[in-house]
């Protein structure tokens, strides 16, 4: 582990089922530093590769909902503070805290903050922007965004053994197996 000459080993598959089978096999054999790259979301793949942190998917909706609630409070507060405390104007004898009139601004601001929160959750969750990643060194990676399904096992995994892994990939019908040079 002192120096990494390679980032990992990839297997390129032409259909998602073979990729899922290989991923399942690797997980069962105890490999953990496994990641798959696909042109579209493959049903059930994330559960195979990252089964543990299920709490994340329970927490995230709460995070976004929390952002929405905070935005609603702030959106209402700023209007109430403006109209009732800071710059009170009597319009036709209506109450200074005329809440029905503050709803539109509150709703739109809440929805905007929800959208922004979603965007930031995506960027933080995917660790973006990250313009360079070692997987880009793989010659076949360019096809993972077009029509191929790529499974990568990183060299930092404890049981990393290129010959053995090559066999596993090929047994599951990988059309191409290659080593990914490191940084």
């Amino acid at each position, binding site marked *: 582990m002192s120096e990494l000459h390679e980032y990992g080993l990839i297997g390129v598959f*032409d259909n998602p089922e073979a990729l899922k089978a290989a991923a399942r096999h690797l997980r069962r054999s105890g490999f953990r530093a496994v990641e798959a790259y696909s*042109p579209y979301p493959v049903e059930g793949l994330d559960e195979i590769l990252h089964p543990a942190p299920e709490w994340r998917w329970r927490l995230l909706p709460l995070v976004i909902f929390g952002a929405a609630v905070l935005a609603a409070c702030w959106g209402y507060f700023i209007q109430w503070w403006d109209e009732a405390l800071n710059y009170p104007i009597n319009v036709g004898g209506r109450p200074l805290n005329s809440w029905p009139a503050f709803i539109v601004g509150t709703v739109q601001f809440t929805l905007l903050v929800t959208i922004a929160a979603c965007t930031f959750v995506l960027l933080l969750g995917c660790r973006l922007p990250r313009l360079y990643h070692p997987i880009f060194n793989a010659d076949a990676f360019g096809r993972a965004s077009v*029509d191929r399904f790529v499974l990568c096992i990183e060299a930092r995994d404890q049981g990393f053994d290129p010959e053995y892994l090559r066999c596993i990939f090929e047994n599951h019908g990988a059309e191409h197996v290659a080593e990914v040079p490191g940084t």
Partner: protein
Amino acid sequence: MTVLDLPSEAPVPVVAPGVTMRSLSEEVGEPNLRPKTPLWWWISFGFSLSLLLVLVVAVIWTLDKSVGAWGINIPVAWGLAIVDYVWWIAAASGATFLSSMFYLTRSPWRTATHRIADAVAIACSASAGIMPIMHLGRQGLFYWLFPYSNVMGVWPQVRSPLWWDFISLLCYIIAATFYFYVGLLPDLATMRDLARDRRQQLFYGVLALGWRGSSQDWAYFRFVYLIMAAVMAPMVVVVHGVVGLDFAGGLTPGWHSTQFPPYFFFGALLFGFALVIMLTILIRAAYGLDDILTEYHLNAMAKVVLVASLLLAYAYLWEGFGAIYGSDIAERTMFLNRISGLYASCYWAKIALNVIIPQLLWFPGFRRSQLLLFAISLGIAVGSWLDPYVVIVQSLHRNYMPSEWGNYYPTFWDWALFAGSIGLALTLFLLMLRLLPIVSIAQLRRIVKSAGAP
């Protein structure tokens, strides 16, 4: 297989049978990646750029002379600028509703057309945004609408529907940009990987932010995109509903009606879909995307146009019924003037273009013929402009007291601003068309896959 599974094949193929994941990416990416820009693009771009110059001149002229350059006066104090504003924001809201609502319903035809709709929404909301600012009279002070701490100690009056309009539009434009960009991210990565030279690689690579399409990326993407679609759909209903509230909040006869928010939203739905249909027809012809933007898409969108047209017909009927059945003599006089007075031709034209002619779409032949569908959609675009024109100008020119009756004659600068705003939207759209994949490749792959192609 359980009964809850989606049917693997639609009765009519969503995309042509020969399309594979590779050919899909190449076919959609090719127009963006090829170094030579086609002649039709330069011609359209030159046309739209010259209209944009008209906008620049009209804006400078208006900034110099203020709104006195236009035909507005008392009693008709809202003129073409507000008509254009309602028209543009209708297009943007309707298009975003197509993209967001029909994602939630899992409609397969939405997948290939939503990028066009999102691009339309961005381009049209830019044109919509300049109109109210130009209309302010003292345009340089528009930032007073922001609720920000200032040394004057002055704050906006947030009880006004006009302020609701400002905050809705502002929130919507920012949110629509986020929504557009997140949906684009996986496609930008595809473009980065298909890029042919260093320049393209840098351009798409930086825009893609390093998207890798790992299983985790996709898990986050699906999670986030679903919430975004679920938020955008009610947001645009509020946006155009609030435009309706601007009128419902006024005491002018013909405006003061609770049906305005849904009525305006139905109009937005109709116009947004008509505009996306027109652009889909043009883009599939220009880019030769017949096998991706198939007749299935046009057929489905034409049916939604038909539904929106019927909803709008309901609002029109209720408008007449409320005025005639109600006891308010001013409302009744106003409505009778609307259907028989000076602006009767505009009123009946909008009824014909928005409600009567779209009924032809009940016949499959009209939904199948691209030429007729395009003509009907173009008619709807005109009708959707006449709709706010009648509501605004005709209502204002017959207020309560006969002594405050008067006419409105748009000047050259009114029309210049309108033509120029078309130039702005068109320029933005053409730039997006040239630089970004106009069909959502990543989302369409699932459909290509389920259609059984390798």
